[in-house]
């Protein structure tokens, strides 16, 4: 069955179903519009428009070997891309140097000026090695020994002689 016949059958079935159920879906209107004939001479006008359309600009006619769809050109283009990428990467790598980590600071040797005294192998020691000097040092007071007179005597609870709490004390005194 051709597509048009199949669709006609579908539409006819839908139309029949609509008629049977008494409902309207408005498809007749759409079908009426879809069947409207095209205006006279539309093909000629379209053809004239296409003739007036700008053609593809081809200033140079390249030989077949240099066309972009030839395998030689494709491989050449691929090689050029690889070359550019690799060259660019190498260029960046060769220009960017890894920063050297300074572990030891080498002081330049002190050379005595001609005609002056030598330093006699004296080495200047930076002040920082002696540590910082505090302008107002905090003095810590020494901890003094506590004298027996300063011992605070705990108040003794007075206990009645007759109570149980007084018994052991009394026994110890004996």
């Amino acid at each position: 069955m051709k597509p048009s016949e199949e669709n006609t059958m579908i539409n006819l079935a839908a139309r029949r179903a609509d008629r049977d159920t008494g409902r309207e879906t408005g498809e007749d209107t759409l079908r009426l519009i879809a069947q409207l004939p095209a205006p006279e001479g539309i093909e000629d006008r379209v053809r004239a428009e296409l003739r007036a359309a700008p053609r593809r600009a081809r200033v140079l006619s390249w030989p077949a070997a240099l066309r972009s769809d030839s395998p030689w050109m494709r491989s050449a283009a691929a090689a050029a891309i690889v070359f550019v990428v690799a060259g660019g990467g190498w260029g960046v790598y060769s220009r960017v140097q890894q920063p050297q980590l300074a572990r030891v600071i080498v002081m330049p040797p002190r050379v005595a000026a001609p005609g002056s005294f030598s330093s006699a192998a004296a080495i200047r020691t930076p002040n920082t090695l002696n540590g910082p000097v505090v302008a107002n040092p905090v003095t810590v007071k020494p901890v003094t020994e506590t004298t027996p007179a300063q011992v605070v005597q705990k108040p003794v609870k007075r206990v009645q002689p007759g109570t149980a709490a007084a018994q052991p004390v009394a026994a110890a005194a004996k």
Partner: protein
Amino acid sequence: MSTSQAVFAGWMEIPNSAVNQDARSQTEQTAAEEATLVALVSQYAGTLYRVAFSVLRNPADAEDAVQEAFLRVLRHRDTLDEVRDRRVWLIRIVWNIVLDRKRRAKTRPETDDVTELARVLPHSGLSAEEIASAAQHHAHVLACVDQLPAKERQVLMLSAFEELSSVEIATVLDISESSVRSRLFRARNLMAGLLKHERQ
């Protein structure tokens, strides 16, 4: 050094015979493409116009859309051989163009559809009163169609073309055939509801 390398180096001339052969084959190819294009215009211009008119409902706009569709084909004529079903491919191009135009035309004032329909639709053997009444009915139906969701509306409009099968509608809309059927079912139900509601 190979021939191609020599050509690149610039000291070896390309033989004239090769250039002439290239030019001749190119001319032949262009002529063949143009003949194909002319054949497409003769064969499908009418179909494309009706598809465009069903959406735009304006003869001048529909013709513009058809011309734009063929201009697009002209720009991509190199790929014509790769197209399997040219009719559906062309309908799809014009469908996208008219949808785009319809979207852009939303800001413009709507044309008087009733007058346009009364002028365009066939009315042989009808009185002036009947023509006006029919045009009013069709305009009312079209207004209801415009109220449908876009997906359902598109399927319903394309289903009105009896030369398009559900598979082809699916290809034009880039959906599955089962989606076409379900959307068509929904569209018909919605339309029935809208028309019933309007009548009451």
